[in-house]
């Protein structure tokens, strides 16, 4: 969405150069961490390459690691070269970009750090400031307090201060509420950008285009025509050295509470009246609030936990850990559109392949005209592929060539990459630009975060009281048998191809 930051600029030419962001500085807490190296700096460099950033756009990184500006620049240069995807590295551009990279070492619990940040920002001379919390979640509170005490949220007239907060936003419903309560005295809700990078993916945004830009699908998008919906986010890798972190999180917190419930909300939400941040977020929030919260008795029936064989042997992982590396859950949406339509959601590590997709399984034709020849009759499926091979497929039946009426499923495919050719921006590029432009459409709001925690809270509570017989699935399989059984009870099954 274009936000007309230059609406009153008589020289604007939105078809050719509208989306350069306002001049600003970005302060990154946790600047020596993985996210900064792998995602943030490559995204910022790419935005500079695309000429979306002002030439004087500045980054001020901070973390405990003692580094000089020069060493920080060199480290970031190596990271950008290593993690830049689909793009060339331009040495001249880097030199120009790196001139505005700065670094301040310091302890995030020390008030002097925040005074030093304010001093450095004054020296850099940028009126607009975007703070980015890319630290361990335990530092969110101290950083918010430190920024508040240093007067960081107070912007000069016509300027702004915003803060991006990485997931996880809280460990449960109560801690998420407590964090919100800690943030709001310092930053008003409209300045808070809770990032869920799934929402920044082009293909997730394309769900909205697909649903609300076309007239032919929305009439089918309801309980009358849809039998059930399958949402899968599978990873072929394990915890890859993040065992200690993952052991504290688990698949339910790491994937379902944020990414997949947001994807589910995007698939199932009502059309917004206009494509504006609060209109879209209102509809997502309404949908999240409509998800039926399971009772304690329903959890064993509608949620399955799994742990792959070998997780307990990962470095940093407790050999007795009860943390789940796989989750499957059945959710129901309590509204007129989706009443009694199951939404099956699953995510896991060490599964056969990396894929995120949404499968809409339509109801069968009301009368089986071809039943005699119909040994191979299969339902219509609409498959929205988020990653990899982003695209959309519609599966339907076709007559097989030859005599007789033998039907065979065929697929009509739209492939994002080949249809457009041009490179898609990474989720972080999209989301960073949006935050700098003040567009919060793809960020989660307080009520959305709390609604999604409310949905998973009974599962967390029930599982915390249970001792699982882990491990219960082998690497390279599609998870524990109980997951298939959960769907089989409804006469359904996962699509594992």
């Amino acid at each position, binding site marked *: 969405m274009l936000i007309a*930051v*230059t609406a*009153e*600029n*008589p*020289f*604007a*030419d939105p*078809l*050719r*150069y509208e989306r*350069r962001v*306002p*001049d600003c500085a970005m302060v990154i807490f946790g600047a020596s961490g993985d996210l900064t190296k792998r995602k943030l700096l490559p995204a910022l460099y790419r935005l500079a390459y695309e*000429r979306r950033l*002002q*030439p*004087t756009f500045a980054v001020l990184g901070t973390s405990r690691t003692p580094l000089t500006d020069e060493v920080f620049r060199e480290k970031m240069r190596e990271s950008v070269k290593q993690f830049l*995807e*689909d793009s060339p590295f331009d040495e*001249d*551009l880097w030199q*120009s970009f790196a001139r505005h990279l700065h670094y301040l070492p310091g302890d995030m619990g020390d008030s002097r750090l925040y005074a030093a940040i304010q001093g450095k920002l004054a020296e850099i001379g940028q009126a607009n400031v975007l703070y980015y919390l890319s630290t361990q979640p335990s530092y969110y509170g101290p950083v918010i307090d430190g920024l508040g005490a240093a007067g960081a949220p107070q912007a000069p007239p*016509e300027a702004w201060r915003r803060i991006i907060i990485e997931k996880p936003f809280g460990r449960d419903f109560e801690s998420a509420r407590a964090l919100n309560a800690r943030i709001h005295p310092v930053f008003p809700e409209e300045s808070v950008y809770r990032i869920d990078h799934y929402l920044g993916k082009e293909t997730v945004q394309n769900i909205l285009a697909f649903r609300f830009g076309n007239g032919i699908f929305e009439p089918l998008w309801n309980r009358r025509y849809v039998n059930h919906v399958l949402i899968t986010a599978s990873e072929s890798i394990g915890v890859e050295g993040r065992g200690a972190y993952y052991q504290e999180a688990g698949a339910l917190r790491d994937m379902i509470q944020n990414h997949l419930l947001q994807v589910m909300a995007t698939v199932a939400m009502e059309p917004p009246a206009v494509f504006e941040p609060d209109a879209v977020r209102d509809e997502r929030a309404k949908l999240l609030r409509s998800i039926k919260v399971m009772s304690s008795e329903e959890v064993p029936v509608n949620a399955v936990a799994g742990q792959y064989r070998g997780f307990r042997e990962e470095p940093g992982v407790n050999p007795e850990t009860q943390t789940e590396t796989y989750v499957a859950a059945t959710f129901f949406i309590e509204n007129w559109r989706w009443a009694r339509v199951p939404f099956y959601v699953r995510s896991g590590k060490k599964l056969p392949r990396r894929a995120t997709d949404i499968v809409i399984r339509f109801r069968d034709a009301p009368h089986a005209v071809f039943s005699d020849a119909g040994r191979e009759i299969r339902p219509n499926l609409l498959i929205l592929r988020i990653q990899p091979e982003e695209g959309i497929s519609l599966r339907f039946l076709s007559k097989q060539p030859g005599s007789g009426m033998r039907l065979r499923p065929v697929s009509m495919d739209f*492939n994002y*990459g*080949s*249809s*457009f*050719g*041009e*490179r898609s921006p990474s989720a972080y590029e999209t989301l960073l630009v949006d935050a700098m432009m003040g567009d919060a459409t793809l960020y989660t709001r307080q009520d959305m975060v709390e609604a999604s925690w409310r949905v998973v809270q009974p599962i967390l509570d029930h599982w915390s009281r249970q001792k699982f017989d882990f491990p219960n699935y082998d690497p390279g399989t599609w998870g524990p048998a109980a997951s298939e059984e959960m769907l089989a009870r409804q006469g359904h099954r996962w699509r594992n191809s």
Partner: protein
Amino acid sequence: MTATVDPEKILRDLRELWSQLGREKETAGGVLRACSMTLIVASQCEGDTDAEADAARRTLGILMHDHPSRAIVIHARAGAELDARVFAECWMPFGRHQQICAEGIQFTVDPASLGAVASLLVPLRVPDLPVVLWCCNAAALGQCASTEGQATRSSAAYESLFPMADKLIFDSGAAADPDAALGFLRQLKSKGVHVADLAWTRLTGWREAIAHLFENGSIPADRIAAVDITHGGDSPASGALYLSAWMKSTLPAARVSLQGSAGEPGLRSVVLWGQGVDCSVSLADGSSVNVRASNRSYLSLLPPVTSDALMREELSILGPDPVFDRVLDSLRGKT
């Protein structure tokens, strides 16, 4: 003529091309077919060389990555017999295992027979997709449109290709008579055709640097009293004329001057001044400009102005281009 080149046969050849690529799929990682428009490229052989046609094909190969198309390359060469052949442009996107391929048809034709090719193209357009015609030869514009409204014989031959296109792309940058070239574009536009000029596209970096001086109300535009544009050479090329017209149409109360300087043609600097305002954008080297405003001064990189970069920008605008249209209109009677 039509006996040697049959559109039905070309379409059969294209189908065979895809069947062949499909058979190769079994050994390679596979092929995905992609097409977002029909892109017709009209190039002309100068003397004995095919340099322009070769350059156009190279540009096409790059353009296909962002704008996969059915490319129809019309290569005009004096004395050539009409001939056509099909080809595929394939590439492996970064990090993928499947090639993406787009299809193409190349015609070789005598310039005098361009009109005959036009009729062959009608069934070769991809249905329901936009058609863009890129006239990368000066004969289509610069050398031939010597007086406004009176196209010469050579450009008239190209004109037979115009009606089938949703957008026409020219380049007046090297036109010997820029005023006449711009007049010709205005004439086409007045007939309701979407026209584009790569000489205007080359200005994007300059215009962007100027526009950013005015972002967020940092400089009130109504304070600008005068704009001085300096270009290389004695007489302004079409780029300088466009920039001057853009300034005049954007700041109608300001005085806009255009002055030449020694050296190669091209823009040198733009100085804007008025009450309490003195800012400028000036060429630092071939790839960047110095931007100076109030107490700030910085270097801003210009986007590349290679054929593929310019075409990529134009192909991303298939509907009306209000700013360019306004500027082209404002040149009426001034060129």
